[in-house]
């Protein structure tokens, strides 16, 4: 009897040890209830935050705002050529899949037939490693803004309603001036002009100009949603939008967020990439802030669709 108990005990011990060995060393932690509780309204991975507060005076409530209906954009071969002519290109226009092309030297022009999404790029220099685009040769942000704006206006390329909205910098690893040390430095300055409707920004819809050394244009991209007014709707207040965060969660890199503090709330329109199905552009709150996790801090953002009548989905 005793011998049998020892055998059974050993067998259990072996099973426990074997079981422990197959448990992965870094099991991805998650909370199934949390993921099923949150209402997914946008494209990014969201995380719930138990405590949300605001550190700012919230903007005044707008009672109503216009919802816009998106309008299909189609581009013919003639349209493509006319647009290319604004860049000083004369053809020939080639077709490849969903786009029209003109390959010039050094620029390549491309425009999508069904959306009007347009690029004008100096391949080889854009995001390249050209000596001419070292940080010391780039225009200052102020110069870049002037150069980009002038280029678009003088070539009749500035979309109606677009307004300057910001500057960003592409970065790359390069050799330091002293020799072998690798440094990361700016290698392109991008000036963004964002669409505006009803005096609000349309995030995701705009035109940008990337400048390299000596202010040379390296790339222009237009990603734009054509719209027409649909009708006005009552919208959430900023306070109600923050309350919605509890249902939608926030987008953040912080693991296990515990507490979020809102530091920015703005009303805007949210435009998805053209060809993504989006019947309407709806007034949307952009909410940004800081977030504390169990062992780290960071930032968060979220977009909250502001027209309750149209559900919670962003698009």
């Amino acid at each position, binding site marked *: 009897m005793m011998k049998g108990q020892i055998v059974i005990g050993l067998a259990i011990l072996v099973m426990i040890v074997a079981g422990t060995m197959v448990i992965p060393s870094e099991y991805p932690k*998650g909370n199934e209830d949390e993921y099923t509780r949150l209402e997914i309204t946008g494209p990014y991975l969201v995380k719930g935050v138990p405590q949300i507060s605001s550190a700012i005076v919230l903007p005044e409530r707008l009672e109503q705002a216009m919802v816009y209906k998106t309008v299909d954009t189609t581009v013919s071969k003639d349209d493509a050529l006319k647009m290319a002519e604004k860049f000083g290109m004369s053809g020939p226009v080639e077709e490849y899949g969903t786009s029209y092309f003109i390959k010039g030297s050094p620029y390549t022009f491309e425009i999508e037939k069904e959306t009007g999404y347009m690029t004008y790029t100096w391949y080889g220099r854009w995001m390249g490693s050209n000596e001419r685009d070292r940080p010391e040769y780039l225009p200052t942000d102020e110069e870049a803004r002037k150069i980009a704006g002038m280029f678009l206006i003088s070539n009749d390329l500035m979309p109606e309603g677009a307004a300057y*909205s910001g500057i960003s910098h592409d970065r790359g690893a390069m050799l330091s001036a002293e020799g072998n040390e690798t440094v990361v430095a700016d290698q392109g300055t*991008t000036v*963004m002009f964002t669409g505006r409707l009803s005096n609000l920004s349309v995030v995701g819809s705009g035109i940008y100009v990337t400048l390299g050394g000596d202010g040379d244009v390296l790339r222009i991209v237009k990603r734009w949603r054509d719209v027409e007014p649909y009708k006005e709707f009552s919208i959430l207040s900023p306070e109600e939008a923050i309350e919605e965060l509890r249902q939608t969660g926030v987008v953040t890199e912080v693991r296990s967020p515990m507490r979020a503090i809102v530091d920015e709330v703005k009303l805007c329109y949210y435009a998805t*990439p053209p060809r*993504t199905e989006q019947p309407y552009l709806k007034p949307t709150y952009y909410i940004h802030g800081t977030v504390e996790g169990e062992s780290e801090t960071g930032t968060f953002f979220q977009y909250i669709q502001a027209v309750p009548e149209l559900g919670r989905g962003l698009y």
Partner: protein
Amino acid sequence: MLLPLGSAWATAQGYDAGVQDYEVSMINGGTGSHSDQRLMFPGKAYWVYVTAEGDLIRSYYRSYSFCAEWVGDYHGMQAPLAWADEEAAGFYNTLAGSSLWAGQFISGNDAAMERHWKDPAFGGVDSDYIDNAHLAFFVGHGWEGGFVFGTAADDYNLEYDEARWGNTKTDWIILGSCNTLNESTYRENWEDAFEGLHSICGFDTIGGTHPDMGSHFATKLMQGLTIKDAWFEATDRWVFPSDGNLNAAIMAADIDGDLSTTPDCLDDHLYGYGTSINPPGDPPDFQYKKHECNWLDGV
């Protein structure tokens, strides 16, 4: 390409139209820089010196291979990832339309496994899976130290120190996963994974998925853009507005330690669609670029 000639060819030498000069020759039976294992590209000019009569037969087999894996369903351990399947399938089906590239496999959700990406030295079987293809594409959750699967085979996380890519075949890895090429950690984390690998594309920050992003990326590769440009074009075109801090990135092997002037793997094109450079197994340095996806400012 010269296999049908057997021993009837002695040397082959390509001409680089970009720099207007001849390349280092390949010698039949040669090794090192004159190795006869180097790739030849359709549409490019070569002098081939033959020592006897022979027939050069055009190959009807596709020359290069690729694969894709994706995870959208994490069984509640991570949030589901929208469009992982469409993005991977779009890439796979579009590149499969190339006459030069053959898809080896595409696996999704629980059929995508960590062991397929892990080197045999650490118990994986990547030499039979992703490292047995010239290009491997992944869409799923990630972090600075690796990327995540939905099933524990062998575990949920492929960590950077379990990866040794290119010691069988892989030249390019695409990771549609957040933070995998974080600017602060990319080099320390991933440099040992380069065992013949040319480059990794990924995200410096949170990333984005879109049903059309994979097919757009493949289309751009087949139009002759560099892998870097195609990745930045596709992410720029298809990411949704965020908070202005979404950056696509690429980490590429540098072949000579001179980051600023000479062509490197950063300028690679897909085989058959332009030039590329074979890196050493232990690259002396790396190049890194990150591109801000610019649809986010303005609020």
